[in-house]
């Protein structure tokens, strides 16, 4: 119908599409199209990382020619993958490498749903640059009574087949204009995974500006990939790596990530981009802190781990 929004059209055809404010604010009606460029008016308020994937707001879109839609959940790829490596990174985190097709679709920093042969499905972040390295790397924290953790420890081996769906999420490196700005990445535990991917991407794209990665843990044995990150920092002058723990046994700096974050906020907070990963309470607190310190709300990206 003329002058009818995509949302109204869906509702009129009895498609119960999620929505709330119908004013282009709440983003409940997020929907996607990858066939053609989307009018920026329909993408108002969305982060760059979603805009670039063709996401837009159904309540704001009034197309003048036919538009083919994809429900965001169904839109992503689902494909088979095979485990090529399973190795411990520390006392409770393992690294998994997956071989699969179309690696260029799996964006460093986004996350995927991994489904095993028993039908159990969990979300994990992409910790590397699949297109460059030839595999998808995941960091998985093993949980005492976890269904997936149990499967990974007892059943999964090299050559085990899994299904992956995705990628999802708006936490990835995006700098289409090759602008120069400082980046601060803060995470706890396996929050390191997406942040590491983003750091690697930024470095490989010759990002101009200081890159600081703060990795927090409760105690010394929670830190992992310490040597690799120290090496990376020694190669790149503009990359700084800061591991810290709440209670040290002598290996790492004893500090909490909230204080460290404020310490490493550069003087030009206005152009800085900050990425934050971890449990909700932690990411909420960090985001508010950096926002109050002057970082623009449009430059704060987060990935919440449940």
């Amino acid at each position: 119908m003329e002058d009818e929004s995509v949302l109204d059209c869906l509702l009129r055809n009895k498609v119960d599409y999620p929505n709330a404010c119908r004013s282009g604010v709440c983003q409940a009606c997020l929907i996607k199209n990858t066939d053609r460029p989307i009018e920026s008016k329909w993408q108002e308020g969305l982060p760059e990382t979603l805009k670039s994937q063709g996401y837009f707001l159904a309540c704001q879109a009034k197309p003048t020619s036919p538009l083919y839609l994809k429900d965001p959940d169904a839109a992503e790829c689902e494909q088979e993958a095979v485990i090529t490596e399973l190795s411990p990174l520390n006392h409770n985190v393992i690294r998994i490498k997956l071989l699969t097709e179309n690696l260029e679709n799996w964006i460093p920093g986004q996350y995927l749903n991994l489904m095993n042969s028993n039908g159990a499905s969990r979300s994990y972040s992409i910790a590397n640059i699949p297109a460059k390295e030839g595999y998808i790397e995941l960091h998985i924290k093993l949980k005492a009574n976890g269904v997936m953790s149990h499967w990974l420890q007892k059943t999964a081996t090299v050559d085990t087949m899994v299904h992956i769906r995705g990628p999802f999420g708006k936490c990835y490196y995006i700098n289409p204009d090759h602008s120069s700005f400082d980046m601060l990445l803060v995470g706890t535990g396996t929050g390191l995974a997406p942040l590491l991917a983003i750091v690697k991407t930024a470095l490989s794209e010759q990002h101009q500006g200081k890159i600081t990665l703060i990795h927090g843990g409760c105690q010394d044995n929670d830190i992992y990939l310490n040597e690799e990150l120290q090496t990376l920092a020694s190669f790149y002058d503009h990359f700084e790596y800061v591991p810290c723990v709440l209670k040290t046994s002598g290996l790492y700096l004893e500090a909490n990530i909230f204080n460290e974050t404020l310490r490493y906020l550069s003087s030009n907070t206005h152009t800085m981009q900050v990425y934050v990963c971890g449990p909700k309470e932690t990411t909420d607190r960090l985001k508010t802190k950096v926002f109050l310190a002057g970082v623009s709300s449009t430059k704060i990206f987060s990935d919440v781990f449940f």
Partner: protein
Amino acid sequence: MSKSLFERLGGQNAVNTAVDIFYRKMLTDDRVSHFFDDVDMEQQIQKQKGFLTLVFGGPNNYKGKDMREGHRHLIKRGLNDTHVDIVIEHLGATLQELGANQKDIQEVAAIANSVRDDVLDR
């Protein structure tokens, strides 16, 4: 042809610029900051943008019902007229920082006042 309030203030761009300034004022004001404890600032920014679009005279579909439901849980935590006054105060200060003139600021305040009873569920 005379421009609308929303156009004079700068439309959606003005909302995007104003929201960070306005929300920071709210978060650093002890009289109202406690209403924002434990929130995801990303989500809050979205809501504040909706609010600013509304009071800047921009396009919106907010109904009185939405304002009531949206603030009900805060009324339980003591939301009252004083807080609404403080919001209007910060709105004015934000607009002044952005160079809006007094007349327009007053028009914005009037729109904000017009939803007072909805916000306070009266």
